[in-house]
C-alpha cells in the first residue's frame, strides 16, 4: 500500500475531528491504526437519515463504484495492449491464469468486469478496508483517497455540515505508458508451424523426386593431364567465369566479386538511408537490385547454355548443352 502523505492524512483527520468534536490526535491515531476506534456520541435514531441530502454511504458507494469502474477500465486496457512484444509474451506466463487469458484475448466488457469487480470494490469501501490490497496501482491511489473517510455520517452532525469532502482526484493510470498498438497476431502453434511443416514436406518431396530421376554426375577419374573442353565452374560461379571471358581477371575475378559481395551487399543497409519499406518509395533500390538479378541471371544462363568448346559462344539447339552437372540426366550431346 502506498504511503499516504502526512499532510493529507492530517487534513483529513482535522476535518473528521471537527465533525465529530474529538481531538485531532485521536482521529489521526485511529487512521494510522494505532489508536482505538473513536466512540461516536450516541444520538437519537432518524436525526440524520441515511438518505438525506447529505452525502450518504449509498451515494459515496455509488461514487466509488463509478470511480472503480473507471479504474478497472484503465487496467484492462493496460492488460490488453502489449507494452512491447516481449512483455506481451511474458504476460502469458503463468502468473495467474485469468491474467494470461486476458492479455492474449481481445478486450471485452465481461473481462472488464472480471478484472476488478466493481461490486467488490464498493463493498470494501464500506468495510473501510485499505483498498490497495485488492490489486493494481490505479486502485492503490484511489484507495489512498477513499479509505480515511468514515463510511457512516456521524450521528449528531449539525445540518449542512458535510462530513465527507473531496481531498483530491487521482486519475487511475498505469505506471508505464502504453506505446505499442495491438497488432493482429495468431498463435505460432498451430498456424505458423503447420505451414512450416507443410513447406518442409514439400521440399523433401521435391528433393526425393529429383534425386530419384536425376543422377549426380560422375565423370572419368580426375586427371591433371587431360583438361576437359570446356571446363566450367559450378553454376553459381559461371556468371563470374562468363565475366572472365570479357574482362581482365583483376576486374572480373577480384574487383567485381569484392564490390558486389562486400560493398554491394553488406553495405546495403548502411547506404540505403530511405526508411520506407513501401515499394513505391524505393523504386531506385528495387531497380538496382533487379538489374543485378537480371544481370547475374543472364550471365549464368549464358555460361550454362551458350558456352561450348573452348568456352566459345554456341547455340544449345545447334551444338548441345555443355553442362556436366546434368550430364547423367539428359544426354545433350
Amino acid at each position, binding site marked *: 500500500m502506498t504511503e499516504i502523505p502526512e499532510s493529507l492524512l492530517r487534513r483529513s483527520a482535522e476535518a473528521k475531528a471537527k465533525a465529530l468534536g474529538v481531538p485531532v490526535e485521536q482521529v489521526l491515531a485511529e487512521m494510522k491504526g494505532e489508536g482505538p476506534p473513536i466512540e461516536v456520541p450516541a444520538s437519537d435514531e432518524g436525526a440524520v437519515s441515511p438518505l438525506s441530502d447529505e452525502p450518504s454511504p449509498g451515494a459515496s458507494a455509488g461514487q466509488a463504484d463509478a470511480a472503480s469502474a473507471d479504474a478497472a477500465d484503465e487496467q484492462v486496457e493496460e492488460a490488453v495492449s502489449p507494452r512491447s*512484444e516481449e512483455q506481451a*509474451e511474458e504476460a*502469458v506466463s503463468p502468473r495467474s491464469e485469468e491474467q*494470461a*487469458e486476458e492479455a*492474449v484475448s481481445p478486450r471485452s466488457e465481461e473481462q472488464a468486469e472480471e478484472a476488478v469487480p466493481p461490486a467488490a470494490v464498493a463493498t470494501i469501501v464500506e468495510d473501510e478496508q485499505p483498498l490497495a490490497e485488492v490489486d493494481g496501482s490505479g486502485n492503490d491511489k484511489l484507495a489512498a483517497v477513499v479509505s480515511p473517510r468514515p463510511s457512516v455520517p456521524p450521528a449528531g452532525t449539525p445540518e449542512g455540515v458535510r462530513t465527507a469532502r473531496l481531498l483530491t482526484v487521482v486519475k487511475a493510470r498505469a505506471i508505464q505508458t502504453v506505446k505499442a498498438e495491438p*497488432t*493482429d497476431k*495468431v*498463435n*505460432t*502453434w*498451430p*498456424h*505458423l508451424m503447420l*505451414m*512450416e511443416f507443410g*513447406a*518442409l514436406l514439400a*521440399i*523433401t518431396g521435391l*528433393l*526425393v523426386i529429383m*534425386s*530419384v530421376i536425376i543422377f*549426380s*554426375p*560422375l565423370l572419368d*577419374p*580426375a*586427371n*591433371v593431364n587431360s583438361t*576437359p573442353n570446356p*571446363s*566450367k*565452374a*559450378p553454376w*553459381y*560461379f559461371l556468371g*563470374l*567465369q562468363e565475366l*572472365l571471358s570479357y574482362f581482365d*581477371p*583483376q576486374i572480373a*575475378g*577480384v574487383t567485381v566479386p569484392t564490390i558486389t559481395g562486400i560493398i554491394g551487399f*553488406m553495405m*546495403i*543497409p*548502411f547506404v540505403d538511408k530511405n*526508411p520506407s*519499406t*513501401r*515499394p513505391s518509395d*524505393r523504386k531506385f*533500390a*528495387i531497380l538496382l537490385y533487379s538489374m543485378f*538479378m537480371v544481370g547475374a541471371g543472364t550471365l549464368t544462363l549464358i555460361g550454362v547454355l551458350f558456352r561450348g568448346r573452348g568456352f566459345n559462344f554456341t547455340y544449345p539447339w545447334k551444338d548441345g548443352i555443355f553442362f556436366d*552437372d546434368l*550430364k547423367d540426366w539428359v544426354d545433350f550431346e
Partner: protein
Amino acid sequence: MADGDGKTGLKDKIKETNEKLWGSQVVEAILRPGSPFKKGYSDSPRNRSYVVMNNVLYHLHPVKVKRHGVKLSYTLCLGGLSFFLFILLTITGIFLMFYYTPSAEAAYTDIQALSTNVAFGTLVRNLHRWGAHLMVLSVFLHMSRVFYHGAYKPPREFNWVIGVLLLFLTLFLSFSGYLLPWDQLALWAVTVGTNMAGFIPVVGGQVKFALLGSLEVSGATLLRFYVLHVLAFPFILVLFLAVHFWRVRKDGGISGPL
C-alpha cells in the same frame, strides 16, 4: 470394460496401455508442460502458447506472430527452407562420410562403390548434391525476398550483414564439396574456381596456395577441401546461423507487410 463373454476387449487393452505409457514418469519427464503430445493436452489459447514457450522452439519463434507472416506468399518460407536443407545436408553428409576416404587414390572408387554397392547410396548422394544446389538457390532467393521487402532496414542492418556472410559460407560449402568426388568435373571446376582466387592483388598467390595445399589441385587439396567441407565451414555456418536466428527474434520477428 467387459465384453459379453467377460473378456476385456482388445481395443480397451490398447487404450489402457496407451494411457499407462503416456502417463508414465518417463514420458512426463521428457515432455515439458504444454507439449501437445502430453496426456490430457487440450487445445486452448494458453496451451497453444505453452507449446512454443515451454519448448526449444521458443529460440526460433515467438508465441504469436503477425497474421500476415503466416501467409505463404509473404516469406515463401525461404529462410526456414534454407535451414531445413542445411539439416538435410548434414544428415545425408554424415551418411556419405561413412563410405568416403579423402585421398586422391581412394576417393573416386569410394564414390563408385557408394553408387553401386551401398543400399540407397545413389539416392543419398543425389539428395546431397541436389539439396546443396537447392540450398544455394534458396539462400539467394531468401536474400532477394528480404531485399524486396526492405527487411534489412533498421534495426535489422546487422542481421542482413550476417545473412550475406551466410550466403558466402553456403557458396563455399557447396564449392568445397564439389571437389570431393575427384572426377574430371570436380577437378577442373575447382581449378577454374581457385584460379580466380589467384588474381587477388598482393596476397592472391598465397591464398591460392593455402587453399590448394600445393601449386595445383592435388591430393593435399582434396584433404583440405574435405576438412573445410565437413568441419570448418559447417562449424562457422552454425555459429552465424545461431546469431542470425537470435537477431531475427530480437529485432522484432519477421518484418511488417509492404
